[in-house]
């Protein structure tokens, strides 16, 4: 049954890819069907799970012996528990919605079939990631989603920028994967196994240093996948992909895999405060960095991408807080999945209407032109900035709360982040839907077809009430408690104070945003004479420049140097050797001068040599 979850979308992908043009006509419906059926299987399993009490809710499914060499045994086994279940529902649910949305969005694309195949492939890989019962199999899903994201980012292959962005995403992720494989190797060396249970069971006896190193390696992996500092640079370029992809992969699901990994490996992090501190720091840095980048982007998708970074920063930070935070990390992950997907779909719908223009400076006053989009986007907006009772509020506030519980500076960081979020989201909102119309010539914004708006509406509802449901109906804490445990540190500040403060900060941020972009007219071209900070933000805080300077350019020089070295030095040496022999030979030939008497002389010389050697032996 669990296997079916993965099997269905995988089958869909295979059918569409191998089926070729034959499947063009019905391919997209088939893909949707596969994804949806996978979702229903998920629901079914969920209901089953509800039927069981907290402890025996986790069920494993051993399929076959995958790798077994010496002491190294890795089963091909699946494992579904409350944590994975949450993800399964998120992935298949949001996934299905976005499949539906894409039917409309990709309508005119000649390669629609390939697109849906990739989407299915992604869903399958992502499910494998969250359902694997050991770290190596998780690795497979881990790179599988990487592959899918690579394929989808560079989906518009004729665009060099898209191709480059895809490659960049894959390679930066590979850097993270190095961390994951090192972690797995360390686990094997330390625990002799790489299954979740084995590691969890062994962790307490393991040497603390090992545990810490495993934790840090896992963090590196998480940074790669979840676009955390210092491996964040790929996410903004990833927006080259079609918008549904950005919504599904680069907002709702894949990029949150890092959070899943850390939560999944809580046994490790619980035991190493060093690793936890590192996680929290990374999270804090990224949430501010992302928000900061978000403030200056005119590209609506890049703006959202920055915000994604920052929101995941929140989650990572929360996960870093240990038992006090895991639950809220996942909680925020879910709500974020809903509202960020909604926002992206909204952005997509806007672009659809503005025929694929992404520059917000060409938008404005769209609230009349696209009512549904406006409404759904608006709900998402309220959710993300954390206005009660919308979903973002519940999760984010809990994180801020827990952060203050950890230490005051972290808390302030999260608080500041909340403010900045409010600012840039307000800016986005204002530039897109309010103010006067700054549309280009011949652009006639129109609402998107139902296939697109329906998913948006559903997600909007989710972003509106998801939080409430999860807290009061779903009891997310109780649900996840048996997996990650729950712990309340003595809070420095109680919620009664914290919530009003947070709201105040948010209000300030939003207000400032409205003042600058809602009231005053927005210039159609981005002003040049701006503060250094703005420049930095526009340049993605110089992340790429850094990579360029530190890795790419030296790498190029090194490569060129080595190519030279290989042909000249190594090949040259051997060539030189043979040349030397040749020269020796050419000279030696001259001794053969054709004069019999000189030959005789040589012989006499030989005679002397022989006599010399013979007598030498005698001495």
């Amino acid at each position, binding site marked *: 049954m669990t296997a079916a979850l993965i099997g269905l979308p995988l089958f869909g992908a295979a059918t569409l890819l191998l089926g070729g043009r034959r499947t063009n006509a019905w391919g997209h419906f088939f893909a949707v069907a596969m994804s949806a059926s996978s979702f229903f299987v998920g629901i079914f399993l969920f209901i089953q799970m509800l039927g069981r009490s907290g402890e025996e809710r986790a069920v494993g499914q051993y399929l076959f012996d995958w790798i077994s060499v010496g002491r190294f045994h890795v089963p091909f086994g699946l494992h579904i528990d409350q944590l994975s279940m949450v993800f399964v529902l998120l992935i298949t649910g949001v996934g299905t919605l976005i499949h539906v949305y894409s039917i409309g969005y990709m309508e005119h694309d000649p390669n629609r079939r390939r697109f849906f195949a990739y989407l299915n492939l992604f869903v399958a890989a992502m499910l494998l990631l969250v359902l694997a019962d050991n770290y190596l199999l998780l690795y497979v899903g881990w790179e599988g989603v990487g592959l899918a994201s690579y394929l989808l980012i560079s989906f518009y292959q004729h665009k060099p920028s898209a191709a480059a962005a895809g490659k960049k995403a894959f390679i930066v992720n590979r850097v993270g994967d190095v961390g994951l494989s090192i972690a797995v190797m360390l686990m094997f060396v330390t625990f002799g196994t790489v299954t979740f249970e084995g590691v969890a069971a062994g962790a307490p006896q393991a040497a603390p240093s090992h545990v810490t190193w495993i934790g840090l390696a896992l963090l590196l992996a998480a940074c790669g996948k979840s676009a955390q500092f210092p491996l964040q640079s790929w996410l903004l370029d990833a927006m080259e992909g079609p918008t549904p992809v950005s919504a599904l992969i680069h907002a709702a699901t894949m990029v949150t895999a890092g959070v899943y990994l850390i939560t999944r490996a809580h046994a490790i992090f619980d035991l190493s405060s060093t690793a936890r501190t590192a996680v929290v720091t990374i999270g804090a840095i990224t949430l501010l960095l992302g928000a900061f980048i978000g403030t200056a982007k005119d590209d609506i998708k890049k703006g959202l991408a920055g915000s994604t970074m920052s929101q995941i920063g929140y989650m990572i930070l929360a996960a870093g807080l240990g038992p006090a935070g895991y639950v809220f990390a996942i909680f925020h992950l879910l709500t974020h999945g809903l509202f960020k997907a909604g926002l992206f779909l909204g952005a997509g719908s806007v672009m659809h209407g503005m025929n694929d223009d992404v520059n917000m400076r060409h938008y404005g006053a769209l609230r009349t032109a696209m009512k549904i989009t406006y409404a759904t986007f608006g709900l998402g907006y309220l959710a993300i900035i954390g206005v009660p009772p919308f979903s973002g509020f519940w999760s984010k506030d809990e994180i801020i709360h827990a952060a203050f519980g950890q230490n005051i500076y972290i808390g302030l960081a999260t608080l500041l982040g909340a403010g900045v979020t409010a600012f840039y989201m307000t800016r986005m909102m204002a530039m897109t839907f309010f103010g006067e119309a700054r549309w280009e010539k011949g652009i006639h914004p129109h609402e998107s077809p139902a296939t697109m708006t329906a998913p948006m509406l559903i997600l909007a509802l989710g972003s509106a009430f998801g939080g409430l449901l999860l807290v009061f109906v779903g009891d997310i804490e109780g649900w996840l408690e048996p997996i990650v445990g729950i712990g309340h540190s003595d809070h420095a500040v109680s919620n009664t104070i914290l919530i009003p403060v947070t709201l105040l900060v948010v209000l300030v941020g939003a207000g400032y945003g409205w003042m600058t972009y809602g009231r005053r007219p927005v210039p159609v071209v981005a002003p040049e004479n701006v503060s250094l900070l703005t420049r930095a933000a526009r340049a993605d805080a110089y992340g790429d420049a850094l990579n360029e300077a530190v890795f790419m350019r030296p790498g190029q020089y090194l490569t060129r140097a080595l190519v030279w070295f290989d042909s000249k030095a190594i090949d040259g040496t051997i060539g030189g050797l043979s040349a030397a*022999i040749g020269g*020796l030979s050419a000279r030696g030939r001259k001794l*053969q001068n054709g004069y*019999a008497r000189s030959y005789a002389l040589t*012989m006499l010389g*030989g*005679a002397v040599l022989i006599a010399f*050697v*013979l007598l030498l*032996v005698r001495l």
Partner: protein
Amino acid sequence: MKNSFEYAALAPIVVLLGAGVFSILIEAFVPRTSRRICQLFLVLGSLALSFGYVLINATKTLVGDPATNGGQTHGLRQFAVNGATVIDGAGLFLQGTLILIAFVAALLLAENQVDPQGDAFAARSSTLPGSEDERQFTAQGWTQTEIWPLYLFCVGGMVLFPVANDFLTMFVALEVFSLPLYLMAGMARRRRLLSQEAALKYFVLGAFSSAFFLFGSALIYAVTATMNFGQVSVALENAGQDTLVITGIGMIAIGLLFKVGAVPFHQWIPDVYQGSPTALTAFMGAATKVAAFAAMLRVFYVAFGGMRWDWRPMFWVVAILTMLIGSILAVTQTDIKRMLAFSSIAHAGFLLLGVIATSASGLSSSLLYLFAYGFTTIGSFAVVSLVRDAAGEATHLSQWAGLGKKSPVVATSFALFLLALAGIPLTSGFTGKFAIFTAAIGGGATPLVIVAVIASAIAAFFYARVIVLMFFTEPPVDGPNVVIPSWFTKIAIGVSVAVTLLIGVFPQPLIDLIVSSGIFAS
């Protein structure tokens, strides 16, 4: 001491020399038109007969596999003419090898189809090159049959060489097979100036070296009062420390090293090989090498075996020089005959490893190597004699480009010979090389083997270069073409190919024969 002359034991030699005398009579009395055919019958017949006698003697002397008969490696041996010659297993094997090679070479010498003017030898060597009467004789299609008596005497001397058991006999045999070679070298039909020059150089240097050999044996005699190898070795056990002995050994070594073409006594080889008629070069390259090494092995195993600690270092030096210089100088050769000449020098170096080993395996491996090398050499020169243009043989490497297209069969067989010379597995060359390296390492000459390996690596280059030339490059527009020879050459090449492959793939029978023929008798 009884005065005896064991005709049976010497039959192979007697037959050949007798045939030589008889063929002079043919020259004298048989009309010119039918001389060639008579001579051919006589030569091939006498060679066959003498080979038969070798076989008969062999049946008497073989001891079988030493493993089966109590590790005894001394074959029954028969001294003839008061010990002047000794007929033992190894000697007989060498005699057999020489006669077989001579037989195949005779076929090549008899070839008269490849050159429109006739066979490989001048219509009349007495005529001046380029002179009027030369033209006339050529026009009348005269062929020279005087080479056949010379050839028979030469072979006779060679067959005597390996079984000579004292220095005097050895010297006489040396001269008996060298003098005819000097003459025949100068009788080429084409490029007569080169041919005559080759003869002159060969003669002067050859005489020079044999003088060394002779004086050396005189010194040995002066110390040991005998020339018989066995007695010499006994005498040297107590008189070995004399400086005269060392000098003598050195001079004898010089004489023999010259014949095998070891550095620094090698310089005649390229010139003579290039200048002589190719058919003769084939014979020289194969047979002289075998005979000379046979003598060298016998002298240094039997007579000076006890003094190996004195002469080994000298041979080390010579061997290293020979292997390296031979291979290195071959790299830049542009004439195929010269290239093969230098390669034969390098091979002489490898063979010296067998001499240095001075062990049963050293001897047997050398015999194996010589047998293999002999046929490969004949074959390769036979092929060279087929690639011709208007001016005669086209021996410049550039003219060999794209031969694989013109005549795949010839090119392939030549490639096979080259691979054998390079020592690629499944060819006779590899078997020999392997055996001799094994013997050398067993005899503690590992450094020499390393040098040999390096030399082979260098050698591989120029062998491979010729293959590249033949197969991977386009033929020149006005290049030479491969003439279709008569059955003589066809058989000669065929036999060489067969031997090269057989010893490469199934050497065991030959090895058994060699091992069972035992070591030299003293």
